[in-house]
């Protein structure tokens, strides 16, 4: 059994909480005491129906205000897969939370109200999920019961969205007509929509192929920690621990160390449970190399004929996440990229992107909270980078405010 991480985007009005509630309930991930608590609260507030959004809104402020503020993580499993849901708020003022949830997602579900069609918000969600390179996108056209389960309406929406998505280079796009409230096409195929021949949402989540989404081509091993036991038994042991970020590593492979450019071979790939014959993402392993090279945290191990870029000047899309400060040219920040931390200087802000219209404002002089733009950064020491589109691990980075220590930006290398 493997894991599928998916993000859901949408507002309460789109029926997002109802959909999550149904997936959890039908897969028996909601327990009786949780349901009783929700029923009790719904009753106390005079709500006519059991408000399933109370299950996902975890903070007091969220329950009081009836909104989702932050990303909540939910878990359920079927006999086929384990699922991790990053339940993200859909509203524009929570763009950073959606970006956060999408950063680790294999798949994103965007909910569309069948009556309202493709709204500005749906386009924004689609843009953000493609910006974050979520490999699979599902357009769940919800509330089909309120449009008489009309095939024509569904096709209209599909047409409109497909046209928009062609501008985004969205990869794998799936449209599913559902009614979260009545359960149509959520867990099992709906009898009310015989014209729809595709899978139910859950069936799609269970079967979508994600193993090949990882980069299995470019060997990337950011050195995280050097293991030296200082024990008689392992006297000369020197292992480089890390989580594989790309490619497949095997003992005997020729590898190159960056920044030195020195080459050697993998002597063995160690784990507590014994040596392994190959390692690939997302495995955490320890490499031993045949030659003694000075290697420390923040270095990169790759193949001699397939190296990342060694860059001190990078171009990236940035989502700015700070409440009070702005990103402007000359801003100095701490950058964390794989296991390497350095300082970065914003050299240039090329444009700010309107996340609703995708219009590029080249006159912009700053990025504020939730704004996205293209910048040039100068880094105090070389980073070993790939395009984010090619590898999310070696193409993504975070920016940290040096005064507050807060995480203020997420970057995707172009």
């Amino acid at each position: 059994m493997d894991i599928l991480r998916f993000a859901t985007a949408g507002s309460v009005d789109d029926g997002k909480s109802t959909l999550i509630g149904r997936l959890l309930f039908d897969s028996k991930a909601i327990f009786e005491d949780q349901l009783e608590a929700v029923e009790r609260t719904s009753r106390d507030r005079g709500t006519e129906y059991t408000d399933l959004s109370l299950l996902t809104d975890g903070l007091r402020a969220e329950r009081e205000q009836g909104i989702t503020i932050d990303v909540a993580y939910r878990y359920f499993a079927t006999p086929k897969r384990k699922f991790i849901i990053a339940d993200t708020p859909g509203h524009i003022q929570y763009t950073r939370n959606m970006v956060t949830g999408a950063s680790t997602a294999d798949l994103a579900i965007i909910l569309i109200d069948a009556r309202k069609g493709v709204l500005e918000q749906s386009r924004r969600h689609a843009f953000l999920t493609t910006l974050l390179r979520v490999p699979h996108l599902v357009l769940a056209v919800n509330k089909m019961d309120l449009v008489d389960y009309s095939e024509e309406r569904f096709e209209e929406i599909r047409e409109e969205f497909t046209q928009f998505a062609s501008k985004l280079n969205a990869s794998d796009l799936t449209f599913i007509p559902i009614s979260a409230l009545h359960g149509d096409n959520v867990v099992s195929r709906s009898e009310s929509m015989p014209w729809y021949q595709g899978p139910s949402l859950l069936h799609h989540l269970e079967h979508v192929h994600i193993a090949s989404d990882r980069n299995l081509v470019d060997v990337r091993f950011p050195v995280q920690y050097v293991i030296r036991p200082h024990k008689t038994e392992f006297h000369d042991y020197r292992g480089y621990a890390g989580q594989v970020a790309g490619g497949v590593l095997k003992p005997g492979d020729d590898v190159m160390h960056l920044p030195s450019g020195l080459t050697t071979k993998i002597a063995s790939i160690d784990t507590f449970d014994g040596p392994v014959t190959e390692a690939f993402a997302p495995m955490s392993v320890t490499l031993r190399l045949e030659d003694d090279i000075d290697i420390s945290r923040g270095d990169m191990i790759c193949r001699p004929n397939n190296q990342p870029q060694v860059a001190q000047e990078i171009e990236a899309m940035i989502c700015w996440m700070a409440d009070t400060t702005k990103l402007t040219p000359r801003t100095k920040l701490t950058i964390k990229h794989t296991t390497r931390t350095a300082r970065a200087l914003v050299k240039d802000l090329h444009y700010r992107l309107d996340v609703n219209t995708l219009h590029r404002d080249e006159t912009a002089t700053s990025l504020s909270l939730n704004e996205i733009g293209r910048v040039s950064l100068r880094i105090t020491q070389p980073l070993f980078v790939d395009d984010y589109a090619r590898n999310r691990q070696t193409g993504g980075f975070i920016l940290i405010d040096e005064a507050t220590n807060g995480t203020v930006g997420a970057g995707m290398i172009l």
Partner: protein
Amino acid sequence: MLQHDYTTSQLDVLEAEAIHIMREVAAEFERPCLLFSGGKDSIVMLRIAEKAFWPAPIPFPLMHVDTGHNFPEVIDYRDRRSAELGARLVVASVQDSIDAGRVVEETGRRASRNRLQTTTLLDAIEEHEFDAVFGGARRDEEKARAKERVFSFRDDFGQWDPKNQRPELWNLYNAKIRKGEHIRVFPLSNWTELDVWDYIRREGIEIPSIYFAHTRRVFERDGMLLPDADVVQRGDDEPLFESMVRYRTVGDMTCTGAVSSSAATVDEIIAEIAATRITERGATRADDRASEAAMEDRKKEGYF
């Protein structure tokens, strides 16, 4: 573990993620420690720490906040397991905090040292200058925890501000803090109760005997079965009886309920949990029943 289509099983993915988190902490902090209570989640966390740094020993001490109300079987296990690993165990005692006048013991039948632990924990973190503290909390346990980051920032009062959390993207964790602040780190954030048990089974890890069904003298309060013990105050209207029970969570004897069970092996426990319709905290924890936001409120103060 490996298949030719390069899929990775759920437990391997969760384990790899937790190992990565532990190594980040060891690399970026000066003085981490791992909270080890002898409960199942901290047992799994300890096994992951053993794996993350092998063949080197675990590069940080373990800490237990001992309320003095713990189950003796669990304390035995705690001491045995830390000795086995050659790990340094720091025991922070709630009784010491009471004796020093840092906290005042609750009185009455429902008195519990649960809330007092927070002061003891924060004092110990300050005393030992720990800058990162591993906890075994999982997001599936409770809805306030569902929102918490893997690296969860605590200010110099040890407080959690749920409305002002650092965004956490990809597997990039922000370890920057000032002196006096610390980070709570939760490597098992994405594990469920069932994952923990599946892992215990797969790894063949020993666990304290109270997790398995045994005969115990108990009494009933608020639908929970509390143990017959000196530290648990029992009223005359709460008669003792013998029952076949096991513990689903391990906390203080005063506020941890047993569940009726005949599960005598890890396999039987897994079968039982897979079929249960009540959450572990709902079934067994008086401390979470106080209000809908009981956990959020305690966490803000600096609780585990």
